């Protein structure tokens, strides 16, 4: 039994499709990221799961029970799904402990103790009597998480929960939250437009584009074997090198690749190359030229210009520094090849 099961879900707003025929199964205790640019329908999908929207088509099962279909939704309050909003939506009239205790069942014997325990887990023990307006952004975020997890919902929706935090805080919070989710065995759906965040948090990533599900796989599969050029560029930097199928191989400027998708001879295709798939050494007789170098801390990202004028990126160790306009020779170190049909 899956924790969440979407079967052919569609949703339109005033005839504009927001979600198109999405099917998705999320296992118990799994953390899934919905990744896509703004307008890709990821938030709508989240709200459909939470029960704020009624689907136009398809159905939705939670813990094996059908909770949404056209014309019917089980209201959010009966779904036992926690939710963390992008703007946190803390209750301004309640203290931190009031906010956290809000969702804990009235019948719970040790409501106070449970509240304090969760507050402690999220490092809020000393702030219990503060009002949200007196908290920093990071603290508010923790309250929002603590509040959503306090009723032990089993399923948690996270709508870009870290977007209001600075980078360090964000990385720290991701790690903490993932630990807590795994410890408690909570199924979670995270909406994000940041692939790093999706990879860091999720067991599986669902990439969405204009309401359609493009790919649904583990982070490394999505990264290394993207199914479409859109996914390829959404989950990391990628250059698409044109080539043509000849003698069962794909011939490009960078060399020949295995025609692993069995395209017919003469077919024009593109090969995806990620910056970490390509290495280079300075060589006065090299076919490429260093066009630009960006220092990224742990690495240097080079943009190389091939003789055809095609640009390609390569990341090297941060200590490998070469001046611009240096001639270089390229080495491919890819263990697998990703080829797409040429769109044009």
């Amino acid at each position, binding site marked *: 039994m899956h924790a969440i099961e979407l079967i052919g879900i569609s949703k339109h707003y005033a005839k504009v499709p927001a979600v198109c025929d999405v099917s998705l199964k999320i296992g118990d205790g799994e953390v899934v990221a919905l990744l896509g640019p703004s307008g890709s329908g990821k*938030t709508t999908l989240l*709200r459909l799961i*939470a*029960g*704020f929207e009624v689907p136009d088509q398809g159905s939705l099962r939670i813990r094996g029970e059908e909770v949404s279909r056209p014309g019917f939704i089980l*209201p*959010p*309050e*009966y779904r*036992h*799904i*926690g*939710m963390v*909003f992008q*703007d946190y*939506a*803390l*209750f*301004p*009239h*309640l203290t931190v402990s009031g906010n956290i205790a*809000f*969702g804990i*069942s009235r019948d719970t014997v040790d409501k106070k103790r449970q509240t304090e325990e969760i507050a402690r887990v999220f490092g809020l023990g000393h702030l219990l009597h503060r*009002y949200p*307006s007196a908290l920093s952004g990071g603290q508010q975020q923790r309250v929002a998480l603590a*509040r*959503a997890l306090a*009723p032990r919902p089993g399923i948690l*929706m996270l709508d870009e929960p870290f977007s209001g935090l600075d980078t360090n805080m964000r990385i720290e919070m991701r790690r903490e939250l993932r630990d807590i989710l795994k410890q408690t065995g909570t199924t979670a759906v995270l909406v994000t437009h940041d692939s790093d965040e999706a990879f860091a948090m999720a067991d599986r990533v669902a990439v969405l584009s204009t309401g359609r599900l493009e790919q649904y796989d583990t982070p490394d599969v999505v990264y290394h074997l993207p199914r479409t050029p859109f996914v390829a560029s959404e989950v990391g930097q990628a250059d698409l090198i044109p080539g043509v199928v000849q003698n069962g191989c794909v011939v490009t400027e960078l060399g020949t690749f295995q025609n692993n998708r069995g395209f017919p001879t003469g077919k024009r295709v593109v090969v995806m190359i990620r910056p970490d798939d390509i290495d280079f050494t300075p060589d006065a007789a090299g076919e490429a030229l260093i066009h630009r170098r960006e220092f990224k801390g742990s690495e240097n990202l080079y943009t190389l210009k091939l003789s055809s004028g095609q640009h390609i990126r390569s990341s090297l160790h941060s200590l490998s520094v070469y001046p611009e306009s240096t001639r270089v020779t390229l080495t491919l170190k890819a263990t697998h090849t990703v080829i797409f049909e040429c769109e044009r």
Partner: protein
Amino acid sequence: MTGHLVSRLITGLVLVPPMGILFSALTPSQGVWEHLVTLLGPLFVNTAWLVLGVGTGVLLLGVSLAGLVAYYSFPGRRFFEWGLMLPLALPAYVLAFVYVGLFDFSGAVPTYLRTTFGLQSFPTIRSLWGVVLVMTLAFYPYVYSLTRNAFTTEGARAMEAATTLGRTTINGFFSVSLPMAYPWIVGGLLLSLMETVTDFGTVSIFNYDTATTAIYKAWYSLFSLSAAAQIASFLMIIIFVVLLVTQRILPGHQPPAGHNESARRPIPLTGARAWFASAYCALVLSAGFFLPVIQLMVWAARVAPDDLDGRYLGFAWHSVLVASIAAIVTCTTAFLISVDGRKNPRTAGVTGSSLATLGYALPGPILAVGLFIPLAWVDRQIVSVTEYLFSWKVGPLLQGTFMGAVFIMVVAYLIRFMAVATGAIGNAMRRIPGSMEESARSLNTGSTHLWWNLYLPVLRGGLFTAATLVFVEVMKEMPLTLMTRPFGWETLAIRIFEMTSEGQWERAALPGIILVLTGLLPIALGIRHSDHARY
């Protein structure tokens, strides 16, 4: 900086009448006070009952209706959303005489019940419950409009959060929406209660004596303005203390800036529940608006052949003109004061904003006198100074000239209705996050630019609401208009006074209905417009 000065000055101006009244109260009132003291006990008890009744009534009606239209959809909701504001166009005293005319023993309804069903005993409307009913119907829109605003903006997202935490809509309403809306609900409640406490017209139609009745008894019957001023000051101080205390108690929690774009859509009601919701809204609106309007039309039709003439165009024009000017002036001023209060939170504190609303805490005629006495004094000084300097006799400048009188009239409205305008604008102002201001400033925009391009467009909704409320209030205002108007200046409200002063209520229905119809347009326009404003 100049804005700050101007807003200080205006706050000072607003304080003139209350100070004048406090000053008049210092004069001893021989013999009168001793007599009044014997009456005041029961009268204050009557006022307390009235406050309790009307307070409960406007809360029940205002909050339930606001919640219904904000969170549910049912047949007619789009109309009720703004239609429920319509009773604002009816002055409470008009509603009162319609209700007494319809439901008193000799009125149409009991007479019908007697002749058709032989029903003899019918509870008399001229009693506490009658006044409470009429005032509730007249004043609930204050609570309704402010509360609905709170529910539809910040309340929606919090409601979503509550439902994901396992609360039903009803439960979430009581545990989240309602407490979050407290500042707005209390704001509306205070406005309606200030109207209730200082009202004289309505209670006198029901002959229900309150503390304000004692003010008029002292002044009109015992000819002691100072005794009247003493009671009025006492009432005013009580109201002021209540205002201060409520503002201290309510933590002005900062609501998040409006997130309208993904706000929750109303929950559709079906079947009997939907019809019950529609019927409830329709019932309130009929009782507070359609029934009285129909009765007014019937009466007006009876007297129209004799009374209706071209002059009514002039009355209506005067009403609209002066109400428009007053609305613009009052809202501009309230806007200045609100922005100033935001820029200088320390000096323009809670006390300051309470002081600025004191004009609403005095009965209209008392306020008029409190303004008139100092003005007449200033006028006399101008006259004697010019006479001394230029041996040139001039007439009184302020009251003596048409422009002077119009000026005074507008100032009087400004003082009285400041409370109404600052309420609506202040609420809108609270929704501007501080960061918005800072980001505007960081773009190196001048101060003027900030006003035109930040505050004004962002506060547009609040300004429209404020302007509409002030417009309608000025249209209805009687004692201030009577006392400050230029010679020969007649408005619809004055016309109602001319008719009712000799008890000719049916003839007053003609100006009454025209007043209501004239007030409808701005309500429909203003309220809908402020709804459609994005902030």
